[in-house]
């Protein structure tokens, strides 16, 4: 049975870590998942969940997963932008939870974008 008492325990356990993080705000990593009708219909919810759970599993507390609406490229959904401090935005397309796990490991942890899942690669293929 899940209780509010457990939440208070979580609060105590995480407070120290959070205080540490406040001093180092510049290391924030942002993941923005497209969550309009097109994104949701293409499977964006499990993709967002995978980003959250995988970041949690690896203790990447500097990762913030947020959402945005439709950016007009519905055929490429589910899409997500990954923003690392001091690096250019990387847009990933046609995501699924398995791809997310690779992106978290290679891009969020090691700073190496997974080129084969990016919009540049996808569009290059369809146009070329």
């Amino acid at each position, binding site marked *: 049975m899940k209780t509010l008492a457990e*939440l208070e325990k979580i*609060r105590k356990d995480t407070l120290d870590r959070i205080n540490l993080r406040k001093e180092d705000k510049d290391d924030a990593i942002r993941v923005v998942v497209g969550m309009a009708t097109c994104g949701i219909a293409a499977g964006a919810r499990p993709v967002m969940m995978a980003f959250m759970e995988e970041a949690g599993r690896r203790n990447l507390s500097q990762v913030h997963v947020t959402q945005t609406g439709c950016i007009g490229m519905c055929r490429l959904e589910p899409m997500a932008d990954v923003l690392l401090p001091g690096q250019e935005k990387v847009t990933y397309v046609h995501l699924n939870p398995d791809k997310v796990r690779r992106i978290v490991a290679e891009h969020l942890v090691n700073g190496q974008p997974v080129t084969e899942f990016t919009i540049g690669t996808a569009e290059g293929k369809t146009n070329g």
Partner: protein
Amino acid sequence: MIWDISLHLMDLAQNSITAGATLVEISIRLSSEGMLAITLTDNGSGMDEAMADKALSPFGTTRTTRKVGLGIPLAKQNAELTGGTFHLTSSHQQGTRIDMTFDTRSIDCLPLGDIPQTMVTLIASNPVSPDFVLACASPLGESSLDTRVLKQALDGVMLSEPEVISWMKDALTEETQPLFGGILQ
């Protein structure tokens, strides 16, 4: 294709967030006859009558990127396909309320889907605002979750912390699965 009701809820709740709501309330009630009544209420910017009418049509949208908006019309279609109903009431500057019913005995009724995942992703990707209230009831019992209560218990720790996400997921699964077990998947 939106393949379950929990995804419609996710989609409709996004409209509330876009409308600047600070409180989004979702109620899911299953009657002993198998009628599923879902209400989503927000205190966002709302719509005037003309816009509310337009929102029900696939060709009504506020977007400028294209001329269609499918979220509300698809939810309406899926409710009405079961013999259920869909009502949208909205007033400018006060908020919007959507009432949907689905007849779960209909062969066209979508499964309820993963309500916990819808709630957790909504809450954790909007950890500050809006607040969310989920109230569920079926002949087997009832349960509720209110992020204002969670925030009080967490006292400054964000709802997007991994430990909190995992707590919410487990709590919601524990609470909702026994209520809706049969129609969840």
